[in-house]
């Protein structure tokens, strides 16, 4: 019997071709795997659009573009209202309120917070309630109604403690600010210390910087300028890492004041010049004017008339700009 022999001959492929083939197979596998594992969005389209607009608003606020943020939040609110997304509406209202606070439209802010809180209460949404009370607390603090501020902030703190929300440190910071405003330095210090501990443990960096700054303010009031300066430095390093210009400028100005109190005019001047550079770069003219006042004072005290004149002219230019804008 004849033995049948089947001989296989592998196609002759170069080494580079093998590599290429493997690469192609791997790529195809990756693509198929990726496509198969792509998670489909679970939210309805309108809600997704509303979320996107809301996010744009949040981004616009952090960029200081308040008019743009207002349009985005209102758009998001309309979309959420069109699908009766109550939680979304409440968040939009709180965002609008916070934006109004930044724009100095306090009455509008109050109305938005009240509406947001009403929805939060009807949904029994603890997060919305906590955020709403805290926002209202900030509102009362800004208009100088400290008693009401404490009352609503206590509600926010109670919710956060009960629910274990990471925002607790933020509420304690605001409450600390209110107590500081009421000349209750010891109570404020306790709150800032607790806030700092909580913010550190939850890695809430921006809030930690606020706690450091708050503690710095308490020590500044007590006349411990050196220690206050150290705390401001801590706040500054965090704010710089996070790139929050508004807070960087506050920290620099606070450091300038602490240096002035320690009779270090040169260092103070450096801090105020830096604060001025930050404020003028971000278009915060009011704050830049405050920085300029200090700079001019220091140059006058140092007898540097050239620079005093230079910054006085800059101050005049900013004041004129402000007048023109008002007209």
């Amino acid at each position, binding site marked *: 019997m004849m033995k049948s022999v089947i001989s296989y001959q592998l196609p002759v492929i170069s080494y580079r071709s093998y590599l290429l083939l493997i690469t192609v197979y791997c790529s195809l596998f990756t693509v198929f795997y990726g496509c198969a594992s792509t998670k489909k969005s679970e939210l309805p389209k309108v809600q997704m659009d509303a979320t996107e607009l809301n996010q744009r608003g949040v981004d616009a606020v952090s960029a200081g573009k308040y008019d743009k943020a207002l349009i985005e939040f209102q758009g998001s609110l309309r979309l959420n209202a069109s699908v009766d997304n109550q939680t979304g509406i409440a968040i939009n209202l709180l965002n609008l309120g916070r934006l109004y606070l930044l724009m100095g439209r306090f009455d509008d802010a109050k109305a938005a917070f009240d509406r947001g809180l009403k929805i939060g209460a009807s949904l029994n949404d603890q997060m919305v309630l906590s955020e709403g009370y805290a926002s209202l607390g900030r509102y009362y603090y800004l208009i100088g109604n400290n008693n009401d501020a404490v009352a609503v902030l206590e509600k926010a703190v109670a919710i956060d403690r009960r629910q274990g929300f990471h925002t607790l440190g*933020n509420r304690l910071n605001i409450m600390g600010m209110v107590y500081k405003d009421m000349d209750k330095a010891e109570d404020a210090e306790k709150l800032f210390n607790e806030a700092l501990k909580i913010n550190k443990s939850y890695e809430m960096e921006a809030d930690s910087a606020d706690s450091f700054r708050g503690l710095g303010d308490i020590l500044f009031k007590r006349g411990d300028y050196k220690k206050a300066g150290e705390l401001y430095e801590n706040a500054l390093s965090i704010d710089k890492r996070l790139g929050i*210009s508004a807070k960087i400028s506050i920290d620099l100005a606070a450091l300038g004041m602490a240096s002035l109190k320690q009779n270090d005019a040169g260092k103070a001047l450096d801090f105020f010049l830096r604060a001025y550079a930050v404020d003028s770069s971000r278009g915060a003219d009011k704050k830049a004017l405050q920085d300029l006042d200090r700079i001019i004072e220091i140059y006058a005290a140092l007898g540097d008339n050239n620079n005093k004149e230079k910054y006085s002219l800059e101050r005049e230019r900013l004041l004129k700009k402000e007048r023109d804008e008002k007209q």
Partner: protein
Amino acid sequence: MAKIEQKDPRFKNLEQKVGIFVSLVMVMLAAIFFFMGKERGIFTKKYHLYFVVDSGSGFMEGMPVKLSGFTIGKVKAMSLTSEARVKVTLEINKEYQKWIRKGSVARMLKEGVIGEAVVDVSVGPPSGIVIEDGGELPYEKVMGIEELVAKEVKPILEQIKETISYINNPEGDIKKAINNTRKLSEGLLKTKADMDSVLKGAKGAVKEAASAVGKLGSVGDKASPVLERLNRVAEDAEKASKKIPEVMDKANRIMDDVKEFSGVLSKKSQGVKTMLEDTEEALGDTKEIIKGAKDTWPINTMLPPKEEMKLVPLDGSEKGE
């Protein structure tokens, strides 16, 4: 007991065979890494340049740097300066250094509508000095498509919309002018009829006065120049009355012209309206395409995850600005 290599000749020199095999694999791996590294430019000499921008938004570490559309490096690092501006450091292949001279400018561009953002460096003038390692490049801000649409196209579209609604507004000046002309024309017709009847009366009165003058004799002699003057006035009034239809005709023609003009505008505005609707639709489609692309793998993995609705951080600092 016989060793396995004595039983099966395939196991002869097994150690050498394994050694050769492992060495070959190692060499292959090394070669692959070498080629990949070469491809990625790991062995290429590099140097650094930087530029400073007001905001770091849009920039990312690893973002490609291009010269004449050709990748020549990447964004190496970003850091905040003491003035709170952003320093962007570029890592560029040394071989392209000769093209980046004084006069070269860095810009951030987007490759197409949904393309990735790149840092584009322009070729410097031949007379310029080559910028050395660690040197600074000037940065020029370029408006993106979204900004361009927002800044340039939107105001124009708004103005066109406003113009159309102004023309179509029943309370607007154009519609009011047409109505007023119509009313004026109707008024003129009535006036003509009134004038005709007045003239008829005047003519009769003149005739009666003439016969009365004839009867009066000498008194009539004194009154006759007055009557002649009255007669002339009546004739002038008659002539003027004859001209009224002509004037009215002209007014009617003007009104027709205005109507025609308004009709043309209305038709044209329909065209512009259609064009605006088409533009809006096209923009909507583009938005949908971009959204679709954003939701598709692998682009969705490159974008920040879509999260729940976020809140504006509540400021916990002192009363400020």
